[in-house]
């Protein structure tokens, strides 16, 4: 372990560094991520419609990845705020698959239990639970479970909207199931085993 100098401490480098992090994230990302090619130009953060609410812009997050700051990266709210609008992706001069890297980081944060706000991970998990149970999304079940758990105080102001959706036939009370649910379940079961070994 190298001796800590005052400079290193001031620069925030007195933490465990993890040189394999960048490679790990890149390999776990779908497609060829080009993450290693980032030139820190900042086009991503400047293009992002929700950058104002992010703890780190994508550029900063990628610098932290390169610096091996695993815990800080996985605790960041940035991937959870990404709205997948792909503005940064089409503008990135290095063609980094930024939105897909954000998906990877969400998955890693869930596995490491390092997210700071559970609203988004719970929503994703509830959505996935419904899809795995029925093969289709089930808005009524999703909305009621999610709002009761995370936004109980929002329910009164949501009532006119929810009622409107139901009376106008835009939300069904019961879930719709696919016919070959067993087939889908076998596929997903095998896929999860493959996920663990990859």
């Amino acid at each position, binding site marked *: 372990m190298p001796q800590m100098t005052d400079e290193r401490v001031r620069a925030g480098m007195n933490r465990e560094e993890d040189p394999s992090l960048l490679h790990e994230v890149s390999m776990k990302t*779908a497609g060829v991520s080009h993450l290693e090619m980032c030139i820190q130009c900042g086009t991503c953060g400047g293009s992002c419609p929700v950058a104002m609410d992010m703890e780190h812009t994508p550029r900063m997050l990628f610098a932290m990845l390169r610096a091996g700051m695993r815990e800080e990266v996985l605790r960041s709210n940035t991937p959870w705020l990404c709205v997948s609008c792909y503005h940064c992706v089409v503008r990135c001069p290095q063609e980094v698959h930024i939105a897909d890297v*954000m998906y990877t980081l969400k998955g890693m944060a869930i596995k490491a239990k390092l997210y700071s706000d559970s609203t988004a991970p719970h929503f994703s998990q509830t*959505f996935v639970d419904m899809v795995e149970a029925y093969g289709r999304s089930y808005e009524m079940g999703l909305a009621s479970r999610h709002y009761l758990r995370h936004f109980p105080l929002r329910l*009164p102001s949501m009532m006119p909207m929810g009622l*409107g959706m139901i009376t106008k036939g*835009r939300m069904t009370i019961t879930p719709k199931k696919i016919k070959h649910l067993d087939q889908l379940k076998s*596929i997903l079961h095998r896929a999860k085993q493959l996920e663990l070994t990859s």
Partner: protein
Amino acid sequence: MNKYLLYPGCSMDSSAKAYMESLNEILEPLNLHLEEIKDWNCCGATEYLGINLIPAYSLIARNLALAAKQMNPVNGTGGTRTVVAPCSACYLNLAKADYYMQERPTLGAKVNEALAAGGLEYKAGTLDVRHLIDVLVYDVGLDTIRSKVVRPLSGLKVVPYMGCMLPRPDYQHRWSDHEHPTELDDLLRALGADVIDYPLTTECCGGHMTQIGPETAFELIRRLVADADERGAQMMVTVCPMCQMNIDAYQNEANHFFGTNYHMPILFFTQLMGLAFGKEPGDLGIGVELVSARNALANIGVEVPVTQEPAAPRKKDEGLPMPRRWTKHEGRKEAVK
């Protein structure tokens, strides 16, 4: 006859059923035949990709595998390798899985290993995945569409709202531009509508943020609606169920949050096509939107049948004590006023 495979997606028979109803109405005049993929499943939206990679892509690929099986009917002619998705998120997921399974062959191999557990397989690149408006503009053609117009929409001021997931990332280079595509503008002009230039046309509606970070979502909705309003639009026109849902169903909550009073209806482009083709508003799902398009359509002499309105919100402040509004940052609300 133009024949395609259809991947409807979950919202087409629930929140966006108006999209499906109006699509069914315009198929016959345009001589289009859409064959639904049998037993398709949810594409996972933007949620599954953030949890597990291989299961997420396997979920999407099951649909591609089923479509490929249906591609060439054993008896009968007119097979097709084109899958049409009317929802932008479904379109992107299907296109993305097809593209990444080729770009990263190891991903393709693993997904196929998972599919094999269900007796399926999919060779990436077998199918063409396209969005509905792509097929209407580039296969059917604007001239054909123009020739079917019996009730031009002149006098109806609309902003075309393409949304974000349709023109981006655009793996197969299908669109005129990534940020300012003109396909929807051109189509609406062919219907005779007064199309207003809308620079925010591919800005995000917030996607799932209305569910997990409402304050962030309300700001995105406000930008879109405020700009459409300032430009004098009577309605927004969309190609995506998610965009329609966010702008329509959450506009009221966003109004509460910012202390604004916008009333900006948003309809699907297929509903306007149906109107221009002379169909009845009731058959096109017009009237199920929560921000009513009745006044906007009255400008062009279209009468929308009255449907049941949602319960009126509580008007009086007195009465039982109610919980404080859930908004966390009162500051931003003040700043925007």
